[in-house]
């Protein structure tokens, strides 16, 4: 019995197309890693590629694109919290060139 808020799942064709994109992106990731020309922008490129892969799996294989938006909230809320905590911790731990550095610079200027 289909319940309100839960919609049909993607077709096998969609699943296969998503898999193809995931494989291409993985090949790109490893490729970018080995091409020296990319090393200037390696980190942002890799982060962007893995974010796309992450989103594809979550949206299509875990059906969040079609499923109730409440599930997106149950997953997305804690996920964002984890990201914010991670970024905050990195700021706190690498303070010598971010938080404390900025404050120190201000002190020297004043």
């Amino acid at each position, binding site marked *: 019995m289909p319940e309100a808020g839960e919609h049909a799942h993607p077709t096998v064709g969609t699943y296969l197309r998503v898999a193809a994109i995931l494989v291409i992106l993985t090949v790109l990731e490893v490729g970018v890693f080995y091409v020296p020309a990319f090393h200037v922008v390696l980190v942002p490129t890799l982060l962007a590629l893995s974010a796309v892969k992450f989103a594809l799996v979550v949206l299509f294989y875990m059906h969040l694109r079609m499923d109730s938006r409440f599930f997106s909230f149950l997953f997305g809320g*804690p996920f964002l*919290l984890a990201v914010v*905590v991670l970024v905050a*911790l990195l*700021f*706190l*731990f690498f*303070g010598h060139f971010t*938080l*404390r550095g*900025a*404050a120190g610079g201000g002190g020297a200027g004043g």
Partner: protein
Amino acid sequence: MTGSRGLRSWLTTTDHKRIGLLYFYTAFAFFLVGGLEALLIRAQLARPNGTVVGAETYNQLFTMHGTTMVFLALMPLSAAFFNYIVPLQIGARDVAFPRLNAFSYWVFLLGGLFLNASWIAGPVFRAGVLNVAPDAGWFGYANLTERQYSPGPNVDFWMLGLQILGVSSLAAGFNFIVTILNLRAPGMKMMRLPTFTWMTLVTQFLVITAFPVITVALVFLMFDRFFGAHFYVPQAGATPLLWQHLFWLFGHPEVYILILPAMGIVSEVLPTFSRKPLFGYTVVVYSGVLIGFMGWGVWSHHMFSVGLGPIADSVFSATTMLIAVPTGVKIFNWIATLWGGTIRGTTALHFAVGFIAMFIIGGLSGVTHASPPADLQQTDTYYVVAHIHYVLFGGTIFGLFAGIYYWWPKMTGRLLSEALGKLHFWLTFIGMNLAFFPMHLIGLLGMPRRIYTYAPDLGVSSLNLVSTIGALLIGVATLVFVVNLWRTRSHGAPAPNDPWGGATLEWAIPSPPPPYNFSVIPTVASRLPRWKTEHHDPMPDPPAAPPAPVHVPGGSWWPPVAALGLPVLALALLTHHLWLAFLGVAIMLYGIYRWAFEPFEI
């Protein structure tokens, strides 16, 4: 299974009401143990150079007092009400996952027993009794907890016990989130949920997000202690600050896990005994949600003395002062609820009003730590001990006692004695202020916390004596409460469905409720279904007997079996026996598989 009795029926129960009672009695027993530990601490500190206990025993006492009160008394006492009251308030027959609920309880019980077994387990580790209980503080700061500095099994008990208890809280968290969202009676929209249920929901979201963080911190500690890793070892380039950050990332949401349920209880008790709807229901709910969110953004205020740098200090100072705003909003709403109401001075109301007053004091001293320069003077002194006891005793415990006096007739069918109740309240109220108010001064005069004694020339001897007398008074008050509970079993006046004239659904059904709760699931048309409001007449009570037989799920052995695997696994780590680890995993897997394939209609 309806009306079944005997030990077996309690061991296998999946009825949220029975599990609620189990939570209550177990948590109350741990509350008494934690209280006894507190009395020993106060006896030691009654006079300068006290000799009641030695330094090592003292370390174990304050560690176990804190750990017991937070994880084994306050959280599970709140859980007793989540279990018993939330399904009734939303008009449900049980929680969403009754067996998972039983599992949570058994894991909690076994985890609590595991932790407290450390008091007597000394001989097993070739040490004296009273030698191997956890002794590194309830916060277990690294790197004091490393094997190098804590070679005995003391910290192992603490670390493994907390991990077991975390499983219980997480399982209950998922269960109650789904219960509250999905099992509401027809018409029970989110903004018609009783405030206690709302605060329970916020609390469970905090539980499921905060507990993984301490789990990870404890796993690191476990690897350091058992497998020679270096997560908190400075010589290897690590920083013990990692522990502090992870612990307080959990620890500060945990503070709200402890206080939000009590705030919810007070928000139920005040309207009932003022005969007035809660003032600004929507604002109270939203400020509770806001507290839940903001509770994640203040953790570093526990760490100002670390030297985080001016920007981090300023940010966390500002967020900490900001979080006082939604809390203050709630306080004004509660006062406005009382204002102009038809007030009945029951014991429950006494505790609820006591909560407001004590929580204001605790909240204000809390704001004083929000300022880093002031905090540097207060950190690690008795001033902080005064603050946490005003919020956790004057706040959480008062709220929980308000809940006990309010819902005990519903849970047992008998009214607690009001005379003994008032005596209990006044003794507790005077006792707690005598015990904890002087600690503000003791702390500001420079007495550090967690030190087993002090010199007479510090000038805090008489204040400490007053504090000890206050603690004794709290002990006497608790005895009065125990007598009240005991007496009520046989002598309490039988409670009708609704002894107080409450507005919420739990008062529409018998006290105690039948196993199926509601003979007919009610349809809710307003936020105060049992009161006459401008647009709605009171909801008629469900009929005394169900029109058709109601299916009640039977019990199950598998939740307690699966739960048993966890302490066995912990014991394996504690005693370094690999076969015990396999046994623990085998028991758990066996329990889970039998559970998964057991026919169980809900």
